[in-house]
């Protein structure tokens, strides 16, 4: 057993580099962040000048990736599942335009919501855009399918989605590399009108996309990624999608099961193969990591003769990720009752770090809000969302990137005064700026606090587009200078900070308070690396 030991995410990064990648575009989001970070750290990528800087958000990333593909080169776009909501306009329409250079869109889903607001299944989006979707089960498959994804993309002139989930993204195993493929050169599309989705042209593109579907299904049937693995015990047939394959194989080996298995790793799923499979078994159990998408299409809405079990009939839970135990139960394998967690063990939820600037900001805000009472702070996605927990209990919403500003605006429109938004610096440049413009245009009374720790903290401290730009951005959007305030979030400045917030809460217009102090994690990493550079020099 040789090879690199890589996270699933890292295997995708290496797979793309070896497939002749010219640029990766992404915004950090758990569990997808390490794909781009791997390419950023790669010496080969640096030598080849592969683009790897972060984008402002997933939509700008998706569009930049499409632009690189237009110019003939291979591009990859990476995001977490909810990031695809942000990129959806560009993503869906990229199915319409098609591609020139290969374009792979990696989406990392987070079933069980380890670090997310929902557990949406990106395979829905793949179906929606009518493009091929690949779903690897192992780190090696992640590496290989990334490469195949680029080939597939160029073969059919369509973007390809690579869908992974948390357990593959953040699990390590050995990966063997294949030979390096050269990058494409710059080459314009043969048809220079391909990417113009004017209605008359778009109608033609759509017919082309529809007529390609049969070919995509044929490819899924012949690529080898969807395959039947024979088994003697036909009392059941097992259909497994993506990572679920691993759990079934683990359980089957232990319990000595020998059912026929249909392993699905490429969509659209070939209907003929499904028919062939279900005919040879008495009943079917479907294991999908995510939503019961395939199961639902198999059961349909009308009565049929097939017995199909999975998440829809209660054989498996309707929500959450799968694991070996759930697979065992679904297959009616007796399990010994496991030990219990002793009552003495208490929950240890994540918390803001000691010395974090968000704490001082929340202390100032909390005190300034005391005269008005609770229930008026709209927040956003980032470390500061932990302000929802005790002892702060400081915020009342966390919905999607940028929603703090616009929800505060809507509540203010409804008459809630004061209405406060708390948003991080990176989240603000991701999706907060446009909402602030809405408020400025209408002079809506809102107090927007940008808690600026000059990094993308929750995902591990990536560069923030907002760093050193916030004041100018807010001025440029039209925030009045006397209501564009700077706060120094340190305990010793608490009284001054409280007063700044109190003053702006009372203002009947748009206020922005920038509370700037570097993230202590980023700062300590920066200091450590400076120290080690110095010690190397001396």
């Amino acid at each position: 057993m040789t090879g690199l030991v890589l996270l699933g995410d890292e295997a995708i990064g290496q797979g793309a580099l070896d497939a002749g990648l010219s640029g990766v575009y992404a915004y950090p989001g758990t569990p997808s962040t390490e794909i781009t970070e791997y390419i950023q750290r790669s010496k080969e990528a640096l030598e080849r000048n592969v683009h790897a800087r972060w984008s402002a958000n997933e939509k700008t990333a998706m569009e930049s990736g499409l632009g690189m593909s237009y110019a003939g080169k291979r591009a990859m776009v990476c995001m977490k599942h909810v990031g695809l909501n942000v990129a959806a306009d560009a993503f869906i329409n990229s199915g319409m335009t098609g591609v020139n250079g290969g374009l792979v869109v990696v989406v990392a889903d987070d079933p069980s919501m380890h670090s997310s607001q929902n557990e949406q299944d990106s395979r829905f989006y793949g179906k929606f855009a009518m493009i091929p979707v690949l779903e690897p089960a192992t780190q090696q498959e992640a590496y290989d399918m990334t490469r195949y994804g680029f080939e597939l993309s160029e073969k059919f002139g369509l973007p390809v989605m690579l869908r992974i989930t948390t357990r593959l993204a953040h699990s390590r195993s050995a990966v063997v590399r294949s030979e390096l493929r050269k990058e494409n050169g710059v080459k314009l599309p043969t048809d220079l009108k391909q990417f113009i989705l004017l209605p008359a042209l778009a109608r033609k593109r759509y017919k082309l996309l529809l007529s390609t579907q049969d070919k995509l299904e044929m490819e899924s049937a012949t690529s080898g990624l969807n395959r039947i693995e024979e088994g003697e015990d036909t009392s059941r047939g097992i259909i497994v999608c993506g990572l679920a394959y691993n759990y079934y194989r683990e359980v089957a080996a232990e319990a000595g099961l020998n059912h026929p298995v249909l392993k699905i790793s490429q969509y659209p799923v070939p209907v003929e193969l499904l028919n062939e499979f279900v005919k040879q078994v008495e009943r079917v159990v479907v294991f999908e990591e995510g939503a019961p998408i395939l199961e639902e299409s198999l059961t349909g809405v009308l009565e049929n003769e097939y017995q199909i079990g999975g998440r829809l009939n209660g054989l498996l839970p309707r929500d959450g990720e799968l694991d070996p135990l759930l697979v065992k139960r679904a297959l009616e394998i007796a399990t010994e009752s496991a030990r219990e967690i002793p009552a003495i063990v208490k929950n240890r939820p994540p918390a803001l770090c000691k010395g974090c600037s968000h704490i001082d900001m929340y202390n100032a805000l909390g005190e300034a809000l005391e005269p008005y009472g609770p229930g008026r702070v709209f927040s956003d996605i980032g470390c500061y969302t932990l302000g929802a927990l005790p002892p702060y209990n400081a915020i009342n919403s966390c919905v999607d990137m940028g929603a703090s500003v616009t929800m505060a605006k809507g509540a203010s429109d409804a008459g809630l005064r004061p209405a406060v938004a708390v948003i991080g610096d990176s989240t603000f440049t991701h999706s907060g700026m446009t909402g602030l413009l809405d408020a400025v245009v209408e002079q809506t009374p809102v107090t927007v606090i940008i808690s600026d720790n000059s990094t993308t903290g929750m995902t591990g401290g990536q560069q923030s587009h907002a760093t050193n730009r916030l004041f100018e951005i807010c001025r440029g959007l039209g925030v009045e200078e006397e209501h564009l305030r700077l706060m120094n979030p340190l305990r010793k400045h608490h009284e001054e900070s409280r007063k700044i917030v109190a003053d702006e809460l009372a203002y009947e217009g748009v206020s922005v308070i920038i509370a700037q102090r570097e993230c202590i994690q980023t700062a300590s990493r920066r200091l450590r690396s400076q120290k080690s550079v110095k010690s190397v020099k001396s």
Partner: protein
Amino acid sequence: MKRDIILAGVGGQGILSIAAVIGVAAVESGLYLKQAEVHGMSQRGGAVQSHLRISDTPIASDLIPEGSCDMILSVEPMEALRYLPFLANDGWVVTSSKTFENIDDYPAEDALFEEIRKLQNHLIIDAFSIARELGSQKVSNIVMLGAASDYLGITQERLEGALNTLFGRKGEDVVQLNIKALKAGKQAQKK
């Protein structure tokens, strides 16, 4: 040879470093490896764990099935108990005695250790004091790795080689300190 180990601790205590050392050493020893870890939100002072599986035959699942884990190796005593449902009947709990108390309702130490001592196979190591005597409490995690090292089916040489691979860029001092911590942990386990 097959070992299923859950590494447990609190975000920032270095369990991913333990995982990385075992991972590199396992692959260098020609073994198969799967190691699932937690990133993102829970790293902020929350409970973190890693499922580590090594074997001389291919491994299917990235997660260890409930009731089949050979060892829970923890750098924090309460965290050692959090994953008991995964432990096999004859499995071991090996934990550092140093508590990390960042929550209001953290249990009384006596009661906590009493709970651990109820387990048939347990080993409590004062990794914090050992690491401090070596000069840095930061290597408590590697002391704990040392305490478990006889059980891993990986040679001491390979583990030291992995420390060299992983910490080499931080300088020879750091590598040597970690190797000392590894040896001290191994010694402590024998007492």
